């Protein structure tokens, strides 16, 4: 290992000294931090990291290969990551990618990459230039990275009544006093001073809140399961790995109202009996990470995190963890694996996270929006929460409008409104609508004729749809629906973790058949094979990614059987 002798390990020592426990769970943070000063993760560097953290080299290699934001070969000092997700793809992101790639082809200091979805869909087409999110890129005018486009702000937030987003955009997210001035920490105060943990759980159950990340599991019940699980240690995990194409609501909450996320986590910790919480934020959200890290440190300094919070007996702290480029880590058990320093392979269930979660301990894992809603409920009461929405879907929900809509953005509206009403709030369609993707890449398509569909869990379920992460992505007649389907197929084949056979091979074969179909070369047998693939993925995959990897495409083929010219020969 002659390379080791010449590698200066000074920077690594500084990085390692910042970590309190040098073991496997520190692996991904250390890898992410180390590749900054060293440029990339060389053999010699990994040898040193492996020794320090006691992780076998083959396993470190396996981890690096899994995550797209970890590099074991030289890369540029600067990065331009162009989003080619379905929303950006329909406004020319592939041409942008090509143009930018050409521009930097001879420039070894800048690496140009394609990202499957940056979740900047309200500002499509978008890119991430180093750590700056850039949006509304003008395909014509491009020179230096700075000229690609402007840094996007928080984005448009709509809705007549705003509960979770009321502070977003109107307070300085860095300033804890701004938060406190607008009823911030009122919920935490109420919980700690006036409620026992079982009271909090009772209130949560009474509110009827269910997980708003897509799975719709009753939040109060989840907390109760975790609280009742036998263990000396419990964890709260906030899932901020928002990566579902068409979704950007959690980014708006994390960047616009970070203390509210922490407040929700702390209340969850109190209810469940956890002393430690992790907030896992996707690696492509550097700005949200910065804002949250500042919020964590400030809250700790001001006594809202740490020991004896607000003078109570309760102790709770939060650690921010960065994702490293893997959509699958939004799946709860894959997320645990990632925090534990492993490849993001989903685990088999049962056992469930509430008994065997992070580090095999009882864990309550909730989506960002769910935790913000929890804080709102504890501040305002379950009855107030139930005063809006429907019986089975109480409260307000954040929807993400993107694509061919006059005003893309996050809309906070009561459950129970129709798609048409929501579209109207967004200023109406741009052009003549062709198709609407509901729920995300893992969702389903609806036709422009079906706009009176009611947006609630029960109504959508009845109609064979799912609310997913609240995505409403509009595709108008000017776009080729086949390209959108190809984009979705490509997304899943890129993001399948490769653990279970149906999804590992099914997402690849699905992509190949759609690719063939776009070229007009698919025959009837290919579509029968596609049906089999979809059936197999849906009914035998380990996790939600595989289960839903074919649903959007399947629904499109059902609604528009003639979308592809089929060679019946």
């Amino acid at each position: 290992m002659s390379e080791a002798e010449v590698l200066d390990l000074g920077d690594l020592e500084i990085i390692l000294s910042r970590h309190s426990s040098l073991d496997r769970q520190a692996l991904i943070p250390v890898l992410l931090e180390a590749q900054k000063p060293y440029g990339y993760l060389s053999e010699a560097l990994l040898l040193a990291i492996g020794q320090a953290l006691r992780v076998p080299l083959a396993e470190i290699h396996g981890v690096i290969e899994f995550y797209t934001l970890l590099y074991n070969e030289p890369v540029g000092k600067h990065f331009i990551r162009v989003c080619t997700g379905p929303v950006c793809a329909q406004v020319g992101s592939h041409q942008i990618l090509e143009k930018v790639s050409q521009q930097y082809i001879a420039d070894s200091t800048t690496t140009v990459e394609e990202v499957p979805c940056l979740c900047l869909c309200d500002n499509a087409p978008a890119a991430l230039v180093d750590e700056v999110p850039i949006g509304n890129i003008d395909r014509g005018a491009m020179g230096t990275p700075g000229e690609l486009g402007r840094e996007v702000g928080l984005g448009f937030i709509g809705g007549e009544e705003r509960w979770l987003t009321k502070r977003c955009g109107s307070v300085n997210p860095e300033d804890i006093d701004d938060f406190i001035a607008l009823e911030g920490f009122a919920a935490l105060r109420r919980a700690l001073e006036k409620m026992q943990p079982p009271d909090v759980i009772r209130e949560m159950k009474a509110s009827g809140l269910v997980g708003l990340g897509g799975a719709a599991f009753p939040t109060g019940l989840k907390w109760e399961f975790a609280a009742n699980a036998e263990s000396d240690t419990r964890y709260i995990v906030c899932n901020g790995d928002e990566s579902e194409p068409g979704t950007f609501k959690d980014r708006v909450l994390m960047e616009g109202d970070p203390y509210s996320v922490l407040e929700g986590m702390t209340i969850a910790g109190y209810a469940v009996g956890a002393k430690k919480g992790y907030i896992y934020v996707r690696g492509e959200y550097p700005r949200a990470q910065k804002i949250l890290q500042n919020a964590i440190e400030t809250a700790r300094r001001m006594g809202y995190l740490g020991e004896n919070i607000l003078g109570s007996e309760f102790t709770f702290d939060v650690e921010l963890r960065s994702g490293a480029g893997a959509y699958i880590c939004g799946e709860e058990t894959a997320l645990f694996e990632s925090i534990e320093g492993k490849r993001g392979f989903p685990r088999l269930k049962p056992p469930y996270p509430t008994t065997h979660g992070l580090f095999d301990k009882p864990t309550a894992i909730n989506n960002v929006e769910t935790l913000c809603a929890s804080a709102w409920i504890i501040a305002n009461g379950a009855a107030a929460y139930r005063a809006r929405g429907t019986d089975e879907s109480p409260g307000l929900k954040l929807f993400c409008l993107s694509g061919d809509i006059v005003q893309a953005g996050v809309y906070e509206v009561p459950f129970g409104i129709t798609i048409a009403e929501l579209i109207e709030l967004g200023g109406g369609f741009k052009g003549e609508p062709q198709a609407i993707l509901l729920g995300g890449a893992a969702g389903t398509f609806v036709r422009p004729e079906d706009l009176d569909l009611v947006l609630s869990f029960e109504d959508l379920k009845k109609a064979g749809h799912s609310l997913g992460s609240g995505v409403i992505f509009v595709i108008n007649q000017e776009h080729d629906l086949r390209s959108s389907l190809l984009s979705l197929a490509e997304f899943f084949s890129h993001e399948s973790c490769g653990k279970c056979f149906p999804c590992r091979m099914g997402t690849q074969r699905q992509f190949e058949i759609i690719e063939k179909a776009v070229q007009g070369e698919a025959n009837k047998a290919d579509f029968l094979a596609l049906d089999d693939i979809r059936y197999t993925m849906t009914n035998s995959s380990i996790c939600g990614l595989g289960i839903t990897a074919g649903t959007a495409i399947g629904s499109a083929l059902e609604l528009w059987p003639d979308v592809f010219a089929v060679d019946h020969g």
Partner: protein
Amino acid sequence: METIALEIDGKRVTVASGSTILAAAEKAGTDIPVLCYFEHTSSKGLCRLCVVEVEGATTMQPACVALAQNDSIIQTRSENIDRIRRTILEMLASTVDLSESPDLLEMLLDYDAVPERFQGGKQLLPDLIDDNPVFIRDYAKCVMCWRCVQVCAEDAQYAFAINFGGRGFETSIATFFGKAMPETTCVFCGQCVGVCPSGALKAKTEHLLELGALPEEIFSETRMRRKSKRRRT
């Protein structure tokens, strides 16, 4: 010992509580096809060939890891189950070389699989790796059952010489930076070769014999290589 009773394909069977559906089926004399499942490695439920229908369950259950429940009624073959098994087998056979996986070849026939329907799709057929005197690695035949990685790690040897490369469809078995086996932490215990079900890992001697090498050539080659073998200190 606490026992439970259940019905598998119409046959009543009593097993110890905590048994998997696969174990219960075996006791009932019912054959459920498996690929990644192996008695001596921890079950990961990867291949999903063993899915069965459990009455009342919303999803199909992987028999190798799902526990048998008292009074449950299980079907191990149906049109839907066969459709899943057939499709998985077809996708697998169109991806890698199954010529040395006799069980899978038999299964392909049993389920009327037609791998040709995925003709033209991407295949995973890397070159054979012959980098040590003990065994060869022919990953074109790898079915990704994970057994080699498992026995190299906590399931047996704790050598941690191999793990995964790539992701998704491209997931492979890999060493640190693709290094040759002698340059890894491999202790040449041979356990990975022993558990490989598809001929991807094979004793060097067997490989050379198949190539028609004479015994003295085999001896000389493996001995020469052994002398120059480098080991991490």
